[in-house]
């Protein structure tokens, strides 16, 4: 897992949060974890295949998740229902897609799977056996923790 894979995600998050939410994003201290697992209540998992393989986990605190969707919808949100979860999945999907475009600028061609959303902080994601780098993405409505676990498919 190379640290340079992180930058495209940071850039994509800045871009998407500015356009969709009118929010600034600061990057917190990176940390390495042995297993991919949820940090906060609202979680989106996206698989990556192609030149890089692995998983992405977007973990949002509940209050942040509700506020994000409230900003987009222009009306308050009170629970992590199908509407809120689907919207979060789409935001994570758009960020990941844009990050893949940035990565293709470095000659890495990857595809992403549809977002899977789950609520709760229990457990780990069994498919990930590799280490993950966690990037805290700090905004004034809360911190999104993005875990990136990617390895090169051909040993590059």
């Amino acid at each position, binding site marked *: 897992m190379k640290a340079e894979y992180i930058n495209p995600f940071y850039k994509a998050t800045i871009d998407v949060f500015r*356009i*969709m939410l009118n929010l600034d994003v600061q990057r917190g201290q990176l940390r390495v974890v042995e297993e991919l697992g949820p940090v906060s209540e609202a979680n989106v998992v996206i698989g990556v295949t192609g030149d890089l393989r692995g998983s992405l986990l977007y973990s949002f605190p509940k209050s942040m998740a509700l506020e994000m969707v409230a900003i*987009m919808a*222009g*009306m308050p949100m009170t629970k992590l229902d*199908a*509407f809120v979860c*689907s919207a979060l999945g789409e935001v994570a999907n*758009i960020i990941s897609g844009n990050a893949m475009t940035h990565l293709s600028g470095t000659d890495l061609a990857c595809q992403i799977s549809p977002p899977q959303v789950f609520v709760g902080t229990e457990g780990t994601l069994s498919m990930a056996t590799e280490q993950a780098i966690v990037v805290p993405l700090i905004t004034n409505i809360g911190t999104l923790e993005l875990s990136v676990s990617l390895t090169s498919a051909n040993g590059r």
Partner: protein
Amino acid sequence: MWKEHYRIGSELIDSQHQELFGRVASFIRAVQGEESWEERLDEVQSTLEFMKDYVVIHFRDEEALQKEIGYPWLEKHAAIHNAFREEIREFAQRVEREGFDEEKVQEFAAKVMTWLIMHVGKEDQRIGEYIREQGGQQ
């Protein structure tokens, strides 16, 4: 949901975008309302019906504008429109077949919302930039 900074400088397109955001907002209100699903279903159905036709009109007019001003990325833009129009059509067919399931409609409303914000906020803004760059030449 509509923001003043979404304006691209074409009166027709800007008013269509306002209409789209307004409709999506009422769609979300209906989908997320407190009343029983049966009570909200009328509004959900009629908004979906309206949107299905209105995106066709809007995409057609926006693509015509791009052609008129010689917008260089119109093919890529049209492909994005086509993909979204197809998604709406598929969803409309699906609910016709399977009925209006509340959760499925909620998920769909969220997709439409995020798509519209990202598309108007990013892709359509490029048309506005192009119009401004070409300013005076039309």
